């Protein structure tokens, strides 16, 4: 029997943060993780995070994972058990069992923090057991952990952030994404993620669902169908799409086995992804010594998971610490979580949490409607109206280079604000606000381009020469074009508009693989050219 003050189950963002919160306070902590490495989903998250500076917005998930892992390994109070799968908690005997190296270990913790994350939802459609049908998580694991190309032509089902991000990563891995379909009438994830794949030419079908997988031995295609407003199939709209992989990204469910086994009170809340433990604002469940954090407490982003992890860690350890400073930190985390969830994109989680935490109103405020425009939500492509709303005046356009932020959806994010050396970008007090550029301060230095997690910032030099402009854009594909190379220049839908010459390639360690390519194009295209494609 291994005795410990705190046992944290799950080495993802929530579990690591929980263990660190305890370890930093000199509490004896055991962290167990099923895989042979820490980081959970962070390991696969090669994209930059949204959120605020304090929560490391703008950093890639994989980098955050590296830093957290290093801290865990250095902390003497934390005993790390890798390759260790949680088996169960026997509440009456107060024994937590774990399988490691072919042996069942028995732990006797004073407090438990469960942060087991989530698993992917499944979908019922005809032939859904054909080889070639994957969950998006599996595809991401194959690509980003094992370096295996999962398929050649992928149809993505679901346009939540995972579906959009994995589509982008598939293209980075040299896989063709033949389409993203979404049953809802609008894109599920952040619109900037959708814009990214639209610029790469991926079609997006909102109000569509998959009817069946086609193929005998393996997937050779899919039949999709349009849905009406009431989610009913519209006859005659069936379409066949050729593909060798159908990738399901239809949402996540909290992985609650351990809690359900232990006898924690559970409740079904659709907004939180399904069955979740009943808990209070300190992340404590109906069983006093069990705390929860991260996706299993309600599906959200990694940033929220890290905050919840720290919160659960501090609250669980609080009986051993009794430190006023930690009480202040607890209040601060709660406040940060509230800010993170206060924008229009946080309305779902707010509504879920309000159902969960009975007797208290978890959120007083929070905005439910954003300023997005219908068409953009459906297509991921900004409308003329969107674009007019951000362009500086004619005079400024013609003067010197300027940055253009194609960000039309209120999401919690601030790296552009924090990285402008001239303080030209502001968003007021709420990180959900859209950023605004003060064009009298913008020098056109372009340092914001590689900072934007949504890859939504471009630098325009309209009068590069008498007949040409340059557009500088973020570029995360390989190979990186060379200066002087002639490339295809694409519009916001990934369609070729013209050939252009690469005049500058900015690439350094600080930019962390978001290179900035400047391409010279005829002047008329300065507000159309938004991507490049290398000519083979």
């Amino acid at each position, binding site marked *: 029997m291994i005795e410990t003050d705190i046992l944290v189950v799950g080495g993802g963002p929530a579990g690591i943060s929980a263990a660190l919160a305890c370890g930093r306070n000199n509490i004896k902590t055991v962290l167990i993780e099923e895989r042979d490495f820490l980081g959970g989903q962070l390991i696969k998250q090669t994209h930059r995070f949204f959120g605020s500076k304090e929560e490391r917005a703008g950093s890639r998930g994989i980098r955050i994972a590296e830093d957290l892992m290093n801290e865990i390994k250095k902390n003497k109070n934390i005993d790390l058990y890798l390759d260790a799968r949680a088996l169960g908690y026997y509440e009456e005997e107060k024994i937590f069992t774990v399988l490691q190296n*072919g042996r069942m270990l028995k732990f006797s913790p004073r407090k438990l923090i469960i942060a087991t994350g989530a*698993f992917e939802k499944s979908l019922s459609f*005809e032939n859904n057991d054909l080889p070639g049908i994957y969950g998006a998580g599996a595809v991401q694991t194959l690509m980003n952990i094992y370096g295996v190309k999962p398929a050649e032509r992928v149809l993505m089902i679901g346009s939540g952030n995972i579906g959009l991000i994995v589509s982008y990563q598939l293209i980075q891995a040299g896989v063709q994404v033949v389409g993203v379909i979404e049953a809802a009438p609008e894109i599920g994830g952040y619109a900037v993620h959708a814009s990214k794949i639209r610029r790469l030419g991926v079609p997006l079908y909102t109000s569509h669902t998959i009817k069946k997988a086609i193929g005998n031995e393996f997937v050779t295609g899919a039949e999709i169908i349009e849905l009406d407003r009431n989610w009913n199939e519209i006859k005659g709209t069936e379409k066949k799409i050729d593909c060798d992989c159908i990738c399901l990204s239809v949402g996540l469910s909290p992985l609650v*086995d351990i809690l359900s086994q232990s006898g924690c009170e559970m409740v*079904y809340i659709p907004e939180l992804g399904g069955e979740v433990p009943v808990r209070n604002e300190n992340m404590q469940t109906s069983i006093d010594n069990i705390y929860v954090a991260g996706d299993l407490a309600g599906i959200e982003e990694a940033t929220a998971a890290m905050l919840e992890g720290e919160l659960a860690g501090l609250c669980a350890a609080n009986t051993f610490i009794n430190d006023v400073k930690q009480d202040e930190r607890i209040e601060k985390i709660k406040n940060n979580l509230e800010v993170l969830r206060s924008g229009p994109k946080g309305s779902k989680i707010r509504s879920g949490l309000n159902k969960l935490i009975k007797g208290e109103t978890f959120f007083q405020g929070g905005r439910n409607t954003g300023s997005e425009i219908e068409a953009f939500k459906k297509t991921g492509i900004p409308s003329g109206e969107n674009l007019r709303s951000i362009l500086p005046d004619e005079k400024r356009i013609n003067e010197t280079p300027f940055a253009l932020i194609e960000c039309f959806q209120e999401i919690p994010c601030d790296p552009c604000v924090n990285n402008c050396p001239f303080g030209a970008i502001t968003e007021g007090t709420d990180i959900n606000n859209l950023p605004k550029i003060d064009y009298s301060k913008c020098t056109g230095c372009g340092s914001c381009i590689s900072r934007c997690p949504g890859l939504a910032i471009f630098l325009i030099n309209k009068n590069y020469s008498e007949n040409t402009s340059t557009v500088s854009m973020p570029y995360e594909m390989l190979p990186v074009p060379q200066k002087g190379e002639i490339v295809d220049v694409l519009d916001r839908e990934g369609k070729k508009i013209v050939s252009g010459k690469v005049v500058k390639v900015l690439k350094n360690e600080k930019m962390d693989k978001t290179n900035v390519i400047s391409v010279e194009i005829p002047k008329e295209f300065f507000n159309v050219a938004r991507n490049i494609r290398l000519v083979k």
Partner: protein
Amino acid sequence: MMKEDNIIVCRCEDVTLKDIRELIKRGYTNIEEIKRITRCGMGPCQGKNCGQIILREISMITGIPVEKLTLQRYRPPFGGIKFSEVLGENNDEK
């Protein structure tokens, strides 16, 4: 018409959407009942794939919102464990 018998709901025990819908229509409207009759959710995954689909089907056929339905109960040990591993004898099969 959808071919319900071509739609797998439970991968562990090969149960189809047709099987599930027939049981619900026969009056088995509790996920634990369906689990006991079809073994859906008794496989190694303990219902992670099928559970939500079954709840949704029960809800659609009975008109009761999923929030009001009984949820399935998970049981230890999560993911399964060999007898030799419980006993700490990991020298077989190596």
